[in-house]
């Protein structure tokens, strides 16, 4: 177990590229901040799985069904890994994290407070949301100071990369498909563009401890801008429009400039007042509460030798 005499020493260790491990005597403020960040990530992967599952049963054809199942299984697998890493920090147990999530005491990303209304929405999630999530996670991975989180992010990022490429492939199929497919995809993009842009969050505060402690490596606005620069030309080239009437190219720099972002929508979603927040949490609660006898009985069986 390592310990540091002062926050200055600890921050110097972080600035030098040091990796903090669970049994280190890390400053409590760091432990809490990293824990909350990982818990939010875990909750979001779990709720993302719940958002996507509506369309697995309806996925068109066996290959798409298998891919959709594998993708959502990856998300639940990420939640599983993240909850274990978070639990190892000794702040809350896995059951406590689940209870807090289901009671609305903790949050998950804005995008998973929305509903997927069509197969086009399902593709928009893979294409936009997975790309946005991947960009954020890559930025965390690059300079992440918490060892266990950095190590599982390597795997998560590899898998999210597959999801995004799957999203690209399916989006291009819709782009080249029938008029109905094209319309379905455009509607999906219309519904998911802004939530994906908002996912990056408002501009980072000037003295963001997550940046100072090397959890994040880039400011929210930088990641958000990079996403817009990448996505706009790709979507336009595929024949789709961006649902932002004020979007324009800066004549001097050639960079795409978004219209005003509605941060109230982000705040409302995260506070559990998003369009589908209630159903999402209700589904999760029903599943968790309905199977409490299974968990209790398995605990009971584990306590008694066979």
């Amino acid at each position, binding site marked *: 177990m390592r310990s540091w005499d002062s926050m200055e020493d600890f921050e110097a260790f972080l600035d030098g590229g040091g990796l903090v491990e669970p049994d280190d005597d890390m400053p409590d403020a760091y432990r809490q901040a990293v824990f909350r960040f990982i818990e939010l990530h875990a909750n979001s992967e*779990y709720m993302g799985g719940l958002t996507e599952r509506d369309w697995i*049963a309806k996925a068109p054809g066996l290959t798409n069904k298998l891919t959709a199942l594998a993708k959502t*299984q990856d998300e639940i697998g990420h939640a599983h890994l993240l909850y274990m890493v978070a639990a190892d920090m000794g702040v809350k147990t896995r059951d406590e994290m689940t209870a807090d999530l289901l009671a609305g005491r903790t949050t998950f990303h804005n995008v998973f407070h929305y509903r997927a209304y069509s197969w086009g929405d399902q593709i928009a999630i893979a294409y936009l949301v997975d790309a946005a999530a991947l960009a954020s996670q890559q930025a965390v991975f690059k300079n992440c100071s918490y060892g266990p989180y950095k190590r599982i992010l390597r795997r998560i990022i590899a898998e999210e990369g597959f999801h995004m490429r799957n999203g690209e492939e399916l989006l291009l199929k819709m782009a080249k498909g029938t008029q109905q497919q094209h319309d379905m995809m455009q509607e999906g993009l219309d519904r998911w563009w802004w939530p994906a842009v908002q996912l990056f969050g408002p501009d980072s505060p000037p003295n963001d401890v997550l940046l100072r402690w090397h959890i994040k490596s880039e400011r929210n606005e930088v990641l958000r801008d990079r996403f817009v620069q990448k996505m706009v030309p790709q979507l336009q080239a595929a024949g789709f429009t961006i649902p932002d009437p004020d979007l324009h190219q800066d004549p001097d720099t050639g960079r795409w400039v978004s219209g005003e972002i509605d941060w109230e929508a982000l705040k409302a979603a995260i506070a559990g007042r998003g369009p589908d927040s209630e159903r999402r949490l209700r589904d999760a609660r029903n*599943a968790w509460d309905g199977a409490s006898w299974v968990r209790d009985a398995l605990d009971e069986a584990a306590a008694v030798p066979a």
Partner: protein
Amino acid sequence: MGETEPVTAIEPAGHPAETPGARELVLALADDELCIGQNLGWWIAVGPFLEEDLALTSISQDELGHARALYGLLGDDIDAMAYGREPHEYLCAHITELPCHDWAETLVRHFLYDTAESVRWDALADSSWESLAAVARRAFAEERSHLRHATGLLDRLLRTDAGIAYLLPLFDQLAPMACELFDAPSGCSDEALVAAGVMSSELGNQRARWQDIVGDALAPAGYQPQWPVADPEAAASGGRAGRRSPHFAALHAEMVEVLSIDPSARW
């Protein structure tokens, strides 16, 4: 997706696949896997705990993979076979069509189905239809992990009062129903299939072997399933004869919802 493709010969004449009933048997097994895989996939993100979500979704993918491999023995357009047929053309056993949105039901069905599968894959592992034997051997290997999952949970839960209260009544209901997994599809003579080396044992023998396995697993809980007497007449009007249970319509409607939006589209 095009019109329903007839099940066409892709093997030379005289091949074991040409034995009367061989293709119908493979189609029935593929349809079982398709429905089971579809129903197990429902559990993603809503299982009793995350590890169980992951396990059931893995098994779902395996079963759908088996469906794909089995349809692939019958023709090239796998989606047309999986999703393009009329309900009466499916040959699945009714137990595979049950939604089982209660986890205890899913566990009991999973145990009954995967023990049955292990018996039937074993009976096909040395099939004279070599590509079927290859599918069976691969599936049999995967079945071991499915069975470890099912029996591991069942054994532990049946040591508790709650487990006994939730699970045993479901065996009363589902074990007799699962016997249909060993009914022959209409027009399929299992004696002929055994004679041609497509299967190593008749379906009645497979069923008896499966009932022993199930009985042995439940004996420690002091329970013996009440097995119905095999009834050829009931079989002739059941799932293997193309008669669908009341659950099939909703299951099928979900499977084809997007596909039916535009039959000319490629997804």
